C-alpha cells in the first residue's frame, strides 16, 4: 500500500483535497437538473395566482382542479420512464389504459357469459393489473426474444389492442360503474385526509419508484442496461431479464392508471386513453428522461407532469380563446423547455 502511494505521490496532490468539494458541486448539479422545471412551475403558479388571487393557491383548488386530473398521467409517465431508462420504447401503454379496465369491468358487468362471467366485483382490480402485466410479458417476448424493434412492436400492439377493445365492448362506453362496482367507486371518490385516494396512490408509487431506481440493484441495473447494455452484461447483469421486467411492470402500472381513470369518469370509454401517449412522452422528456436510455430521474418526470397540468389549467383560467388555446399551449411548452435548458445548463437529448 504505502509503496503504491509513494509512486502516486508526484501528482497525488490534485486529488484528495479536491474530491470533497467537487463531489458537492456535482451533487448540487445533479439535483439542479432534476429541478430544472421548478422555475417554470413557479412562474405558472404566480401567473395563476394573479388570475385568481382568491382561490388559485388554495389547497382545495390545486388538489381538486389541477393535481387530481394529472394522477393517471403521472402513473403512465412513471411506467414509460422505466421503459425509457432501460433504453426501450412502449407505446402500447396508451391502449392498456383503455383495454385493461375494459376487460376487467366487462367480465364483471358486461352482458356476456364468456369465461363464466359475470365475475365477482372484487376481481376488477386484480384482473386489470394482471391483464396489463400480460401485455407487458408479450411486448417483452417480442422485443427480448425475437429481437424486434420495441418501438414498432408496441406500436402494432397499440393498434391491435385498440381494435380488440372495440371488438369486445363494440365501441360502446361501459358507463355508470360507480354504482355497480364498489372498487371503482372507492378508487374514484375515497379521500384520505381530504386528499383523493388517486393522489395518494401516485405519491406512494413515485416514492417506491424513487427508492427502487435509486437504491436497489434492480433499479440501478435499469440505468446500466439503458446506458450500455454490453457493459451491463459484462458486469453480470441479466440484460434480457431486466428489460422484460421493465415492460411487465410498466404494463401493470398503465393498467392501474386506466382503472383510476375509469374510476374518476365512472365509465370505460371505447377510446379511453386515446392520444395520451404523446402527453406521456412530453412529460417524461420535458422531465429530463432521455429517449436514448440510461438517463433521467422520476422526480424530474413528476415535475414534467405537474408542469403540463399547470399549463392546461392556467390557460383555461386565462380564458384564452378556444381556437388559440392549443397554439398557446405549444408555445408555453417551448418556452418552459428553453427556461429549463437555461437554468440547468444541460443539453437535452
Amino acid at each position, binding site marked *: *500500500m504505502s*509503496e*503504491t*502511494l509513494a*509512486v*502516486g505521490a*508526484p*501528482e*497525488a496532490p*490534485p*486529488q484528495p483535497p*479536491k*474530491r470533497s468539494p*467537487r*463531489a458537492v458541486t*456535482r*451533487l448540487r448539479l445533479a439535483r439542479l437538473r432534476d429541478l430544472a422545471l421548478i422555475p417554470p412551475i413557479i412562474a405558472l403558479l404566480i401567473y395563476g395566482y394573479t388570475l385568481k388571487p382568491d382561490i388559485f393557491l388554495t389547497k382545495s383548488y390545486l388538489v381538486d382542479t389541477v393535481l387530481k386530473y394529472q394522477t393517471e398521467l403521472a402513473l403512465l409517465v412513471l411506467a414509460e420512464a422505466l421503459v425509457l431508462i432501460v433504453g426501450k420504447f412502449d407505446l402500447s401503454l396508451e391502449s392498456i389504459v383503455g383495454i385493461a379496465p375494459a376487460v376487467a369491468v366487462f367480465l364483471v358487468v358486461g352482458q356476456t357469459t364468456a369465461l363464466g362471467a359475470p365475475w365477482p366485483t372484487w376481481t376488477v382490480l386484480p384482473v386489470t393489473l394482471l391483464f396489463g402485466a400480460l401485455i407487458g410479458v408479450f411486448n417483452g417476448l417480442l422485443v427480448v426474444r425475437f429481437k424486434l424493434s420495441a418501438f414498432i412492436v408496441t406500436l402494432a400492439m397499440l393498434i391491435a389492442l385498440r381494435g380488440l377493445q372495440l371488438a369486445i365492448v363494440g365501441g360502446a362506453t361501459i358507463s355508470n360503474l360507480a354504482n355497480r362496482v364498489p372498487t371503482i367507486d372507492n378508487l374514484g371518490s375515497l379521500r384520505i385526509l381530504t386528499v383523493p385516494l388517486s393522489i395518494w396512490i401516485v405519491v406512494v408509487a413515485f416514492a417506491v419508484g424513487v*427508492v427502487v431506481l*435509486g*437504491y*436497489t*440493484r434492480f433499479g*440501478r*441495473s435499469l*440505468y*446500466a442496461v439503458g*446506458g*450500455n447494455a*454490453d*457493459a*451491463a*452484461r*459484462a*458486469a*453480470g*447483469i*441479466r440484460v434480457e431479464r431486466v428489460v422484460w421486467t421493465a415492460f411487465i411492470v410498466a404494463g401493470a402500472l398503465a393498467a392501474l392508471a386506466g382503472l383510476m381513470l375509469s374510476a374518476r369518469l365512472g365509465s370505460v370509454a371505447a377510446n379511453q386513453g386515446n392520444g395520451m401517449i404523446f402527453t406521456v412522452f412530453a412529460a417524461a422528456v420535458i422531465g429530463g428522461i432521455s429517449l436514448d436510455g*440510461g*438517463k433521467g430521474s422520476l422526480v424530474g418526470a413528476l415535475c414534467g407532469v405537474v408542469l403540463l397540468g399547470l399549463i392546461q389549467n392556467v390557460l383555461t383560467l386565462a380564458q384564452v380563446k378556444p381556437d388559440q388555446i392549443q397554439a398557446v399551449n405549444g408555445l408555453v411548452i417551448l418556452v418552459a423547455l428553453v427556461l429549463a435548458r437555461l437554468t440547468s445548463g444541460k443539453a437535452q437529448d
Partner: protein
Amino acid sequence: MAEDGSTPLVEAVGIAKRFGPTVALADGNLTVLPGETHALVGRNGAGKSTLVGVLTGLLRADAGEVRFGGRPAPPLGDRVAWRRHVACVYQKPSVVGDLSVAENLFLDRQPRGRWGLLSPPRLRRAATELLDSWSVPVDPDVPAKELTVEQRQLVEIAGALSHGARFVILDEPTAQLEARAIARLFDRLADLKKQGVTFLFISHHLPEIYQICQRVTVFRDARHIVTAPVAEMDHARLVEAMIGEARGLVQVGHDRPSVPPDTAPVLTLEAVGVPAVAEPVDLTVRRGEIVGVAGSVASGKRELAEAVVGLRPRTGRILVGGRPVRAASVPAALRGGIGYLPADRNSDGFVPGLSVAENATMTVADRLGPFGVVLPGRRDARGRRAIADLDVHTAGPRQPVGELSGGNAQKVVMARALARDPQVLVLVQPTVGVDVRSKESLLGVVDEETRRGRGALLVSDEIDDLRVCDRVLVMVAGRIVAEHTRGWDEAVLVAEIEGIGEKDV
C-alpha cells in the same frame, strides 16, 4: 492454493467463431495453468479478443469447448457463475458513461446499507478506497463518460481486479497507459500473483511479456500457433511466430536525415493557448520534420493537439505553410492542410456502422466525384489502397469498421488522417493497440510521408513513437518544459514527463 499445478485452471479447445463471412477464430487453443501469468499475443485481427469473448461467456463459440478447473463452463445465460470464474478488462471500453465511476466499479454488486437498500455513502467510500489504492486521480462521483481514456482504462482495471476472481483476463490493458501507470499496474499484478491469482495477459508491447509472463501463446490467422515458456521464446522467435516469416523488425526512423534548422516551417504555433488547459505555446514543425510532444495525462498535450485541429477554442495564431488557419473550425483546419488522428478511436475516431472505405475517405468526401457526388467505385478504390498501404486486416473495403479488431480500426483512422495528403499530420497516440508489425508500418508511413516534405506533430508517450521523432518536446502542466533532439536518454525523458525534471529547465 486449492489448485494443484497439474489440472489447468482454464482450458479452451478448438474454439471456432465466425462473424458472418469473417472467420474470427478457426482453431483457438489455450491452456492456462493455476498461478501463472500467461501471455496471449498475435497480430491485429488474429482472434485474441474473440477468444476473450468466448472465455468470458459473452460470445457463443461455433465449435470447441471451454473448461474451468477441468469442469465444463456454465451456460451462457448464467452471468453470475461466469463472473465467479473469470474477471476481465475488455479491449473495447465497457463502462456505463452516465453512471458514476463508483457505480461502474461496483456494478451489480453495490454495497447494501439499511433494509437491504444500496448505500451511496458506502459505495463512495468503497470506491474511494479502491481508487486511492491504485492512486487513480479520479473523483468517484463523476460520470464515467467524463474520464479520459487513460483514467477509464485504470478504472476498468481496478474494477476487474477487485472482483476477487481467481482468473483475470487483461486485453491490452497497457495500451492506453503511461509509464508510471503501467509500473503501478505491474506491481499490483505481482501482489495478486503472490496471492495465487492467475492472469491471461494480452499486449502488443513484447517487452511487457518478458517482464511479467511465464508462458506465452501465439495466435496467427485465427489459429493457435505455439505455446511455450517465455524463456524459450526470444524476441525474434516470438515476432516470427506472430508474423509468420523469418525477417525481423526494423527500427523505424533510425536512418532519418537530420532536418537543417533553416528549413521552412510547415506548422507554426504562435502563442497558442488552450483556455484553462495549456498556457500560450510557441512551436514550429519544419518541412520533413517529425516533432514529438511527450507528457503526462495532465500535461494538456492532447488538448493542445485538439486545439490545433480546430476541435477546441484557442488563443494565438496557427500558420500552416505560412497561411493562417481559422480557429475552432475543423473544416478550416482540414482545408488548411492539417491531418488529424484522434486519441480515442472509439469516441471520435470512426463511425462503426460505416464501411472501412467510407471511414477512410471521410476527410476527402469532396474529392470522390464532381459536384459533391461520391462515386462508390472511386471510394472503394481509395479504400483498397488504404487497406493495402496500412495493411488493414479486413474482409474488404465494405466491411463496417465496427466489426474490425481494435488495431485494425486504428489503422483505418490513420488512413482517414492521411487521406487528404495534408501538409502536416497531427497524431495523438497513433500506435495504440497496434501490433508490432503494424506499428512498424504505421510509423513507417509517418517516416515516409515526412521524408516527402510533410511535417508531423506526434503527441504520444510511447517511447517507440517518440524514437521516430527528430525533436521531442516535453509538456508538463500545460507548459513546454524541455526539448530534445534525436538521441535523447530515455531515463531523462521519463523523469521530465513525470514532472521531476521540471525545476531544472
